[in-house]
């Protein structure tokens, strides 16, 4: 089979089983767009800004586990995609981004719409390629997909100069069946001796905590994790990225840990004598002050990326490997043991944990006059709990309220930007999820500041009939910024008030969607029900909430887990009692 470079790009996508490509055309990719036009297997979704193409591909990847694909032109198209690439990089999301480039002879001449995108993205991709010969496209595409999805996943960029896709040049095409690279050999199974060492510690532990993260979601090891928890009766906490890998309703689940984690999760970490970290990377939002992090604990760390291990915190038993096979081995070795984990010690430990739990740290003062963001999320859960439901989020207080108050029962259902914290992520990510699961209920929780960073995508949703439910928790502030200014800058709210807001409901209507404005707590549930009953329509719910609610508990950056700020409402309650 002889194909042009452009046809090879598209054929390679087919051979990878790619269903969707999110993109935006321009001069350098016109040949590729022409090849896309002439086939049906790969569906191209036209976004309204290249940032959204990368976020949509990313959202698709997070929800499905498949590699997300985006296609953009050279120069401004490529630079617009960078935020989405960095977002995927920080959260280890498998993605292939194809960028057009100026023709090879023009590279380096400051040609029209030329940027050195491989140079620009080098620090925020897993790897990138510049393809200089049409004969190299197929192999490069195969490598790009292989690198993106194996080992620790991540985005890979393939930069293709326009002349390499020249329609007048045809070369034989064969897609590599297998990729093997001498310089890239991701690990699979963990070292069995290390796993046994971990098991030794686990049976001896008096106060163990399992701390798991995005790696369990990415590695599809939720079942194995649940079995391990059931077998050991150990408490478990998740990072923001790990939510859903353990059922929130499981009594072993302590909630999220870290800066806005629960009292019980953070106290358990602080008092633990053994931490079993699984697919989590000891991020600063999680550890707080390193010197005070888990002061009494031995640490076991399972991670596919050796560089994640002992990066911030020294660990005692490193296990490099994929979570799934490692957890299988761990469970097997535990079951083979004659001695089980120390039941009496665990009973005492659970007693302490339940005492921390009884503080009920997420309790808040609800109101019948103004909608509290916590109540907005709880009610969202009430209305959607029986649905096949996915929730994406933007970045800010609303993201934290969603993480705290929406109990996720399954992995890949909670889709948010954790590592980069990219405002503008939520709506395009929801587009990717909805495209993957047309029948599912997909909602995006957002803020009035975040939504305006990619609001143009309401047009894309119209064009492709994406019935996303947007839940805008409108506090009129960049709430997360305002909260920090309240706590640490004496309430000097410098530029965190979001002025000149549009009427969001009407704005949504002009894009052809349904708009709602909800101001009273009494109306909220009915409004949600109505919105979710409109199966084929995007509904934009502008939920006016308490402007100055804060996210609690909170550990200040640089403080220890035992130094949480609790809601003032809690201390007030305690004084009354």
């Amino acid at each position, binding site marked *: 089979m002889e194909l042009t470079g452009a046809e090879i790009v598209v054929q390679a996508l087919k051979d990878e089983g790619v269903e969707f490509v999110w993109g935006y055309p321009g001069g350098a990719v016109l040949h590729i767009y022409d090849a896309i036009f002439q086939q049906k297997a790969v569906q191209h979704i036209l976004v309204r800004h290249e940032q959204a193409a990368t976020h949509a591909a990313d959202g698709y990847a997070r929800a499905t586990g498949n590699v997300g694909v985006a296609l953009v032109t050279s120069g401004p198209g490529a630079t617009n995609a960078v935020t989405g690439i960095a977002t995927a990089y920080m959260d280890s999301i498998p993605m292939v981004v194809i960028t057009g480039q100026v023709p090879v002879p023009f590279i380096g001449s400051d040609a029209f719409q030329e940027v050195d995108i491989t140079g620009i993205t080098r620090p925020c991709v897993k790897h990138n390629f510049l393809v200089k010969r049409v004969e190299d496209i197929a192999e490069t595409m195969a490598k790009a997909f292989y690198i993106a999805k194996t080992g620790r996943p991540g985005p890979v960029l393939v930069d293709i100069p326009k002349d390499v896709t020249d329609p007048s040049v045809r070369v034989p095409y064969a897609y590599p069946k297998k990729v093997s690279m001498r*310089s890239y050999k991701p690990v699979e199974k963990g070292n069995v001796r290390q796993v046994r060492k971990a098991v030794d510690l686990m049976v001896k532990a008096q106060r163990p905590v399992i701390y798991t993260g995005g790696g369990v979601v990415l590695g599809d090891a939720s079942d194995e994790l649940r079995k391990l928890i059931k077998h050991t009766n150990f408490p478990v906490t998740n990072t923001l990225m790990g939510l859903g890998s353990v059922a929130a309703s499981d009594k072993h689940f302590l909630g999220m840990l870290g800066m806005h984690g629960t009292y019980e999760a953070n106290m358990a970490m602080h008092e633990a004598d053994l931490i079993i970290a699984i697919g989590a990377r000891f991020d600063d939002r999680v550890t707080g002050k390193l010197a005070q992090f888990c002061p009494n604990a031995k640490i076991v760390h399972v991670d596919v990326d050796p*560089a994640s291990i002992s990066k911030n915190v020294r660990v005692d038993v490193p296990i490099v490997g994929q979570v799934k096979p490692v957890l299988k081995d761990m469970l097997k070795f535990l079951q083979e043991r004659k001695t089980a984990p120390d039941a009496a010690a665990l009973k005492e430990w659970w007693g302490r944990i339940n005492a921390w739990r009884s503080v009920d740290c997420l309790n808040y003062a609800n109101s019948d006059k103004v909608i509290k963001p916590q109540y907005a999320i709880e009610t969202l859960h009430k209305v959607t709990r029986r649905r096949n439901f996915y929730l994406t989020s933007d970045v800010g207080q609303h993201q934290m309220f969603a993480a705290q108050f929406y109990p996720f029962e399954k992995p890949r259902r909670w889709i948010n930007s954790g590592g980069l914290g990219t405002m503008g992520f939520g709506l395009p990510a929801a587009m990717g999820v909805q495209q993957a699961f047309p029948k599912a209920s997909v909602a995006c929780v957002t803020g009035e500041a975040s939504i305006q960073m990619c609001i143009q995508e309401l047009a894309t949703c119209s064009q492709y009939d994406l019935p996303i439910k947007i839940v805008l928790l409108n506090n009129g502030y960049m709430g997360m910024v305002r909260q920090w200014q309240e706590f640490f800058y004496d309430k000097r709210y410098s530029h965190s008030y979001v002025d000149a807001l549009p009427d969001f409901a009407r704005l949504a209507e002009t894009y052809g969607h349904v708009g709602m404005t909800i101001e009273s707590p009494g109306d909220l549930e009915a409004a949600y029900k109505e919105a979710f009953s409109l199966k084929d329509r995007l509904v934009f719910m502008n939920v006016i909430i308490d402007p100055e609610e804060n996210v609690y508990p909170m550990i200040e950056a640089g403080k220890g887990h035992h130094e949480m700020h609790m809601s003032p409402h809690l201390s007030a309650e305690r004084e009354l009692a």
Partner: protein
Amino acid sequence: MRHIISVLIENESGALARVSGLFAARGYNIESLTVAPTEDATLSRMTLVTYGDEMIIEQIIKQLNKLVDVVKLLDLSDGPHIERELMMVKVRAEKSNREEMKRMADIFRANIIDVTDCSYTIELTGAGDKLDAFLKAVNEDLIMEVVRSGPLGISRGVKGLGL
């Protein structure tokens, strides 16, 4: 602690930038870096010298290994190894100090590789401290130009860095 690390890396455009970019982006110290193709033209060998505590060096090695273009690496400081650096020094060599310069070169087993009426270019190979010692020994006012390669390293004995 000072570490000298040898890296085998795919000989591809951008590979060097990935390594130097890594050091810049993560704030690692880099004292010297030399690179050239190996006997296998598809591979380059890099020698880099860096400083850091144990945890940082461990991260540097892991992060280097993580680069998709890096095939293999060896921290030479882990075992017995040899280091050599090449230096070329251009010195003023006029009537009065011509003899003196020649003698100095002989003492250090250096070679004079270029001669003009008023200058010598001296080539010297050795461990870094030997090169330093030479520069110290020569009258500072006579030194016109110095170029150093940065150290190259190889492990002693059968152990080594190969595919």
